Every structure is written in C-alpha cells, then in structure tokens.
C-alpha cells in the first residue's frame, strides 16, 4: 500500500529522481519539480534532455523500456506512486499522451477512445458523458468515429491521442510534445484545447521543445538539460528570461530555431 503523505500538497511532486536505462548510464539526476493541482506546468528542454524519460518514470512506462528508478520519490496527491505499474498510475488519475501520438492505427477512432475506459468501472455513469465531452472538444473526431486511426492526419491523431487519455478521466494530464511536427494552425488549436481541459479542472504537465508555446499557456515552467533541472520559475518570467532566449530562441539549438519559426508563422 502506498503511504499517505499528509503534508504534501495536491498535485504531482517529483523529488530527487535519478533514473537510468539498463543499456546506458544515468539520464536523470536528482530531478525535483512540482505540479500543483489545477495548474498548467511546462517542462522544456532540448533533444535528449530526459523529458520523455522523466514522464516514463512518473507514469510507470519506464520498465517497458528497461529503465530503472535509482533514487527519489514521486507522489500524486500525496500518495507515493514511485515505480508503480502503468495501469495502477492510470487508475490513480494520471494519464499520459505519448510523444509522437502513437494512436492504435488499426482500431477505429471510437475504439481508440474506448481503450481509455478500460480502467473505469463498468457502471461508471460518467463514461458516456466523458465520451461526449471529448467529441465536443474535438469536433473533427466526431465525424471520423468509424474510421481507422492510422488514416487520420497528424493533427487529428494528436487530438485523438489527447482524447483517448482524457477518457481515463485523469486529474493530471501529462503531454509529451503535442506540437511535434504539426502545422502552426493545429498547434494553436491544441494549445487552446489544453487550456480548455485545464479550465475544466484537470491539472496539466506539458512537455515541449516549443518553449514559447509552453510558457505562453503555463503558469510555471522548468528547463531540463542533460538530465538536470537547470532552473524554474513563473512561466511569464521564463518567457522573457535571457537564458531561455539563448537556448531556445536564439541559440544554435534546432529546437530553438523551430520554436522561433513556429512563433513567427503564428504571428506571436
């Protein structure tokens, strides 16, 4: 049984997390961050910083990649979930949208969404309501319910991936680079959707290379590099911070260039 830590605040707390893969060395060292309930928190960092590994460690997917948590603690609303199975973590109210969407290509859109109901109780009366809410949020999916997900466009697949995660009725939604490879117009729509989801009471941890996008909609942000949290602060301040500007807006970093390009094209 997980221990109850009454002193911890609601939301996600990652404390001193050190993570490695069996096939390689450490990829995260002593990472600590908090995602207070009700907020949007952004985590940005360049390729290979360890963002995805951190999410895997939190959501229980690390084992599937032969990864190990060496040290540290993860709590969700005060309950320790360090090293818990993915299905246990989902049942506790944390849903993850995987990097690169990863829809079930041969299942229909409807079936993709219904996989999210797997952990819900059969008699859960909110199931149907949640399904309808998701279709209201993503109108395009409603017209494509019977279509195989593999044939959707990238943007539609991203919406499906988010919708499918929402079907688990999470209190905390974790998104891994939802803007990756999408056109600016779609990126805009996705950031609006993330804000709408948050406005309805779901806490959000948003991982992005697109720092501008992330800091624009987040309340608080962290910068991860080389497996360490370099700094963190209110998102509004980070957006103007010259260290962030250096790494993600002006530096030689690919992701920085991409972030700026995206920003220019969306007119921000």
């Amino acid at each position, binding site marked *: 049984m997980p221990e109850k830590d009454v002193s911890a605040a609601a939301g996600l707390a990652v404390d001193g997390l050190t993570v490695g893969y069996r096939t390689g060395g450490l990829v995260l060292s002593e990472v600590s961050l908090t995602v207070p309930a009700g907020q949007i928190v952004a985590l940005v960092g360049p390729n290979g910083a360890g963002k995805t590994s951190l999410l895997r460690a939190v959501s229980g997917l690390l084992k599937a990649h032969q990864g190990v948590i060496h040290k540290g603690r993860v709590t969700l609303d005060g309950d320790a979930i360090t090293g818990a199975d993915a299905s246990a973590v989902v049942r506790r109210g944390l849903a993850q949208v995987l990097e690169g969407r990863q829809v079930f290509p041969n299942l229909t859109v409807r079936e993709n969404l219904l*996989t999210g109901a797997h952990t819900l109780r059969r008699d859960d009366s909110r199931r149907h309501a949640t399904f309808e809410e998701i279709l209201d949020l993503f109108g395009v999916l409603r017209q494509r319910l019977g279509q195989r997900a593999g044939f959707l466009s990238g943007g539609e697949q991203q919406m499906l991936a988010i919708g499918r995660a929402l079907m*688990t009725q999470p209190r905390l939604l974790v998104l891994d680079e939802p803007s990756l490879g999408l056109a600016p117009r779609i990126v805009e729509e996705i950031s609006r959707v993330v804000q709408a989801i948050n406005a309805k009471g779901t806490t959000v941890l948003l991982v992005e290379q697109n720092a501008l996008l992330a800091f624009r909609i987040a309340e608080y942000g962290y910068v991860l590099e080389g497996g360490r949290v370099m700094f963190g602060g209110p998102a509004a301040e980070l957006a103007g911070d010259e260290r962030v500007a250096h790494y993600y807006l002006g530096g030689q970093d690919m992701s920085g260039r991409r972030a700026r390009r995206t920003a220019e094209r969306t007119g921000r």
Partner: protein
Amino acid sequence: MDNFLQLTFQGMALGCVYALIGLGFVMVFKSSGVFNFAHPVFVMISAYIVAALVPHGFGWGVLVALVCMAALAIVCEKIILRRLAGRSLYVVIMATLGLSVMGQAVVAMAWGVNPRGSTEGPMGRGVLRVGGVALPWTGVWIITVSLVLLAVLYLFFQRTRYGLALRAAADHHEAALAQGINMRWVQTISWGIAGVLAVAAGVFLGAFPRRVSPDMVDTALGALPALVIGGFGSLAGAVVGGMSVGLLLVLGSGYLAEYGGVHVVLPYVAMLLVLTLRPSGLFGHHEAERI
C-alpha cells in the same frame, strides 16, 4: 461433381482445424510477441488426454483437457516466458522449442510412441447423406463447432472490454500500457484462449485421420504455411489461410492421387506464391503510415 463437393467439404473440415491451430499461434504472438513453437504439442497433448478419457465419457475428456491446457498455457506464460521478458528473441524461441521437446518426451513416456485410439467419441463414424454426397459426421461436427468458436472469438474481440484491450495491445504495446491496460491480464487471457483452441484442434485432429499419435505435432506445424498465406499476425488471415491449406491438401490428394503424395507440397507452393506476390500475406496489413 459429387466427388468435388465431397472433397471440398473434407477440405473445409481440415481447413477449420488449421484455422484453429493458426489462431492459437496468432493469439499468443499478438499479445506477447512470442512465436510459441510449443503450440503443436499443446494440440497433441489435448488429443491424448481426450483419447485416454473417451472410454469414461467424451465430455469428461474434453473438460479435463480444457482445464489442463488452460493451466499449462498460463503456467508456461507466467513461469517461463514472463521471466524471459526483455530477453532476445532467440532465447524466447529456444525456450518454446525446449517446451515442445519436453512435451513430446512426456507424452512418449506416458503413452508410448505408437498411435493410441481416437478422439471421435460421439462424433461417430457415420456419414450424413445429402443427395449423392456422403458427408462424414466428424466433418459436420468440426465445421459446426469451429464456426461457433470463431463466432464467439469474434464477439469477444468486438464486444468486450478485454477483447478491445487485446486488440489495442497487439496494435501498440506501449500505448496500451499508457491507457492503463493491464498487460499481465491481456497475456494470460491470450494464452488461455490459445489453450482452449489447442483442445478443439486436438480433438478434431484426433478424430479426422482417426488416430492420436506423435505425428500430430508435424500435422499441426502444417498450420505455418497457412499463417504465411493469410498474413502472419492477422486473425482473419489465420482463418482464410487455414481454409486454403485444408482445401489444397484435400482437393490435391483427391485429384492428384496418381502423382503420389504431391499434394503435401501444395500449401508450400501457395505460400511461396503469396510471398512473392504479396509478401505481407492476403490479410497482413501494411501499417498505416503515421506522420
């Protein structure tokens, strides 16, 4: 014409058996990524158990075989393969080959190496006459029960929560994990279903050529070209491939009798043809492209 109908009927019956065996392979492969070389041995052991218990009642035999196979499949999965999770494919394949050899040795110790009885039980040896065509009752049973099993399996996959979970897990393992699907259950259920399919195949194979013998392992391995023809990893493909192989074998043996045992190569010829013309098999889907 009557001869053709009769052969077609027999071919369909044999095809059903190959479909059931093929589905057993596919169930396990899709859920755990393991090609279970021990599956034909599961088929043979089921046949031996039923044949041994037929004198006490066919129903008992089937029941005991079902319990034993479900238990055996689940134990194999839990004790052996789960410990090998993450090891190289060779290790896992070697483990299932090892299981296969062990299973054959155990059967040889318990029942010897000569053919033993048959599993036909109430299916009997009579024939059903429809016009000028004589349809053996065993064939009628095989086709009917197989169709019922296929329908149940189809409904399971399409209509139930775990059916959807199994399909999702086969489609994208990590995404299924991220959706909270319990992979242990998915694998246990898949292996259990494979065990049940092995019993059905064992009973039918032991009634069709009317004997239970160690050669059943080789006969069951005949489902492999069926899998390639249908498209490996596709459930519909396993059924269509199984049917094709059954029909080829029986029609071939009927019409090409003067050329000796040439019909046994027909499934392999078909397999090579399919591999050249449509490498992913008739039903194997090219994965839809993700952007």
